[in-house]
């Protein structure tokens, strides 16, 4: 089941190159809005200053520290503000992007005009997906808050023991459990969206709880899909790091190659994410378990646009 779903996901990515390119471009556009002020700042700080050439051979704490000295320091506030705005924008756009993606992936054999499907799905699912996002956020705050609080108490007890290893183990356990819970919530959000899209259900709260249970009951398949995609990304990131370490950082060609590799990696990451959503869709359709009684809508937008 796991391999079949992942295979289905990867096939969907291959069938929808326009979608992955569009999503990659969207992330590039958004990030550019936040990175542009920083780029200007770096240019003003470094372009005419030979001292900055030390940064060609690697990161240097002191030089970046000096960049923030004197009247250059207020720029940091602008950088953080622009980054914050972009992240909020990305979060708000999340339901649009998800709806569009699911619409394109679920369109079956009709592969014409994928972006038309994308915008149709984005608009169709936006409010329901936004509600699901809200539920996921509330669940995350409650769950992570409660579990994190419990771990804090445990850690403070461990800190009082004459056992330094316990000090680190406590923190490691806390981070692992919180990471697991975060993954659970993210997966549940994905599956809740898949079900909502497939069934055009408006009962989003019920679907949200269904998704949490669904993940809990099928951990191998659901977490397995996520872990597989994560592993594929880590492998690519390793290759990217190895390739970058071979480039002479002082040459323009190497800098250009480095940027190209970064964007290639980002496109790959976007493709893996699309592949994961497609795999989740395939998984849902294959398992076909419907613990909550929502009749399959014959006007299903995803299956029959």
């Amino acid at each position, binding site marked *: 089941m796991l391999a079949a779903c992942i295979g289905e996901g990867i096939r969907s990515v291959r069938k929808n190159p326009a979608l992955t390119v569009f999503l990659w471009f969207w992330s590039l556009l*958004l990030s550019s809005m936040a990175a542009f002020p920083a780029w200007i700042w770096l*240019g003003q700080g470094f*372009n*005419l*200053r030979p001292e900055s050439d030390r940064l060609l051979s690697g990161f240097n704490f002191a030089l970046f520290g000096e960049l923030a000295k004197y009247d250059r320091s207020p720029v940091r506030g602008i950088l953080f503000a622009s980054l914050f705005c972009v*992240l909020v924008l990305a979060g708000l756009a999340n339901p649009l992007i998800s709806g569009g993606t699911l619409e394109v992936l679920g369109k079956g054999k009709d592969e014409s005009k994928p972006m038309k499907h994308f915008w149709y799905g984005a608009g169709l699912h936006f409010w329901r997906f936004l509600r699901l996002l809200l539920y996921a956020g509330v669940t995350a705050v409650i769950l992570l808050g409660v579990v994190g609080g419990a771990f804090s108490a445990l850690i403070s007890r461990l800190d009082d023991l004459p056992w330094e290893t316990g000090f680190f183990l406590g923190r490691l356990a806390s981070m692992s459990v919180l990471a697991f819970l975060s993954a659970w919530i993210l997966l549940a959000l994905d599956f809740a969206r898949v079900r909502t899209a497939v069934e055009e259900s408006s009962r989003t709260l019920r679907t949200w709880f269904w998704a949490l249970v669904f993940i809990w009951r099928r951990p191998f398949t659901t977490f397995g899909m996520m872990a597989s995609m994560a592993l594929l990304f880590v492998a690519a990131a390793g290759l990217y790091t190895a390739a970058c370490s071979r480039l002479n950082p002082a040459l323009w060609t190497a800098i250009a190659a480095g940027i190209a590799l970064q964007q290639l990696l980002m496109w790959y990451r976007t493709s893996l994410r699309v592949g994961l959503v497609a795999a989740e869709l395939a998984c849902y359709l294959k398992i076909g378990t419907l613990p909550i009684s929502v009749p399959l809508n014959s006007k299903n937008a995803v299956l029959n646009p």
Partner: protein
Amino acid sequence: MRQTALLATSLLLAKLSYADTLPEHAERVADYTISVELNSDTKQLIGSERIVWRNPSNNAIPDLWFHLYLNAFKNTKSTFFRESGGRSRSVQFKDGAWGWTNIRSMRMADGTDLMPRLQFMCPDDGNADDQTVARAVLPKPVAPGGSITLDITFLAQLPQVFARTGYRHDFFLVGQWFPKLGIYEPAGMRGRREGGWNCHQFHAATEFYADYGHYLVNITVPDRFIVGATGQRVRRRENGNGTITHTFDQEDVHDFAWTASPRFLEIRRTFRGDEQVTREEYAQTAAVLGRTLDEVHLSDVDVTLLLQPEHSPQAERHVNAAMAAIKYFGLWYGRYPYKTLTVVDPGPGAAGAGGMEYPTFITAGTSSLLNHWPLDRIRMPELVTIHEFGHQFWYALVGNNEFEEAWLDEGINSYSTGRVTRLLYGETATLIDFFGLRLGEVDSIRLQNGPELRFNAVLQPAWEYIPREAYGFYAYAKPELLLFTLENRIGIQTMARIMRTFQERWRFRHPCTDDFFSVANEISGRDLSGYFDQVVKGTGILDYEVGEAASDKVPVHFGVFEKEGKPVTINRESALKDVREADKSGKRPFETKVVIRRRGEVILPVELAFKFEGQALERATWDGRDRTVEYRFTRPGRLEWVNVDPDRKVLLDVDWLNNARRLKSDRRVSTRWGATYLFWIQNLIALIGL
């Protein structure tokens, strides 16, 4: 053959030169014989001490002043608590884990009870609730050159480790624990006009100051405890009641600290002066310092490392760092005169006891995370061990007043530590070297400097820094920067001789800042007062920058000019024609204007470098006296770049980025790092955007 010649030259140089010699012993002013028993359940010390104090002055002294340091942790009204807000050395004080010292009795040798004559004093801040200083008025003054013997019993409650001292579980680091005399400074000592006691309250940012003497200390602990302490262990006696008494003896020290824990791994090594330093190293050192081979020869030292068992993979790192420190500090500043060195690794949760120095006894500080690759490339245990060992020279041997002139030990020691660590671990990755992330010694200290740091001075009492955290920069980092800047100005050999001479003259004594200046002026043969006044006593910052830099073709000149004594008129058209021809042949020169500015208050001569197209580097020196200077050049080529302090000798400069300017923009750095920033944001958006 080459080595033999080097050795012979070194010997000749060494013999020709004049040198001070290292004093063998301190003048004994305060001797302590102490017996103390640790109650490991109540965390209390039951102690008795006999103090013999000799009056070093020509005055009759009517009173004695004592430090009762543990009373800093007695309640929230102490000066220490008020200043620290209950937080020190990155540790938050735990409510209920108070510490205090209670003097139970104080008698003179003839039985006179001094308890009714004992009162708490608050010489620094008038805080009547502070009980860290006490004064006992004597029935009869101590005559000049005379002595007095006191017998004191005390009960001390150790705090949970908070600021250097205390307990955590079954780990004890016992420092600042016994009633201890301040220093009576006679007139003339450290620039005093009149004699008087120097006995400051315990402040959040201050350390210590005491007289040299002989310490004989009996420490009784439950027999499961492993004990380490200042000095040599001369006896170990089982008492038959489940306790053991360890006796430690040490001359020529001004403090005594000890530790006890049943969990210590005890690792012993010996540093051997004949094996761990080569003949060539001795010869080179003697030549550089202008001393004889005998004078630079090092003694053997027994090193004991008391390590937490979970840090056992780091044992060799600690030992190697200690050995290297004994070697290089010894070679540069004179042999370590004590027979022992104890390095203590504080127990879990007792980080507040780490990174501290006592005579022959230091505390390091590490974490299990640094046991293995890749985090073992963070050199925290090495750096802390080397720095704290350095204090044996700058604090233990040269006993400056840490309350009033902390830079003399912390600053000089930071400079000395920097020299050793750069030598051992390299310039660019002194502190951190893993996954391509590097942090060098110079970068790490320069990071702390900034244009806003112009409101305190290096030379000021440690408790008067505003904000209190400024102490770290002015006592450690700025002195290191100013000493490295000085070294770059006067040369490493002169600097090495200054430091060596300062150590030789003031070993086992109490110098002040002006004593260091005198040695520096004398040995360098230059008057460095102007520099020291600005950077040690003054509050100003140092920053040079390139204000403007422009290169343009020389303008067209026309009008009436003198040629061979006759007036010649050149009209505009003719001048333009000449210029066009010069342009065609590429012979029209460029006029370059460069403005250099001094943004800071500190004035220091500085080198400038100008690079013109197709020409060799041109250098100039600017005295820096004006705030701005303008340079104009006419050269065949354009200016490529201008650089103030091109060799980066002035480490005190708060901003090196503005030291140089190129005329042609180079976008490689901003493109590379701008793209990297974009890449990381993209990753963040990929996480939350879909």
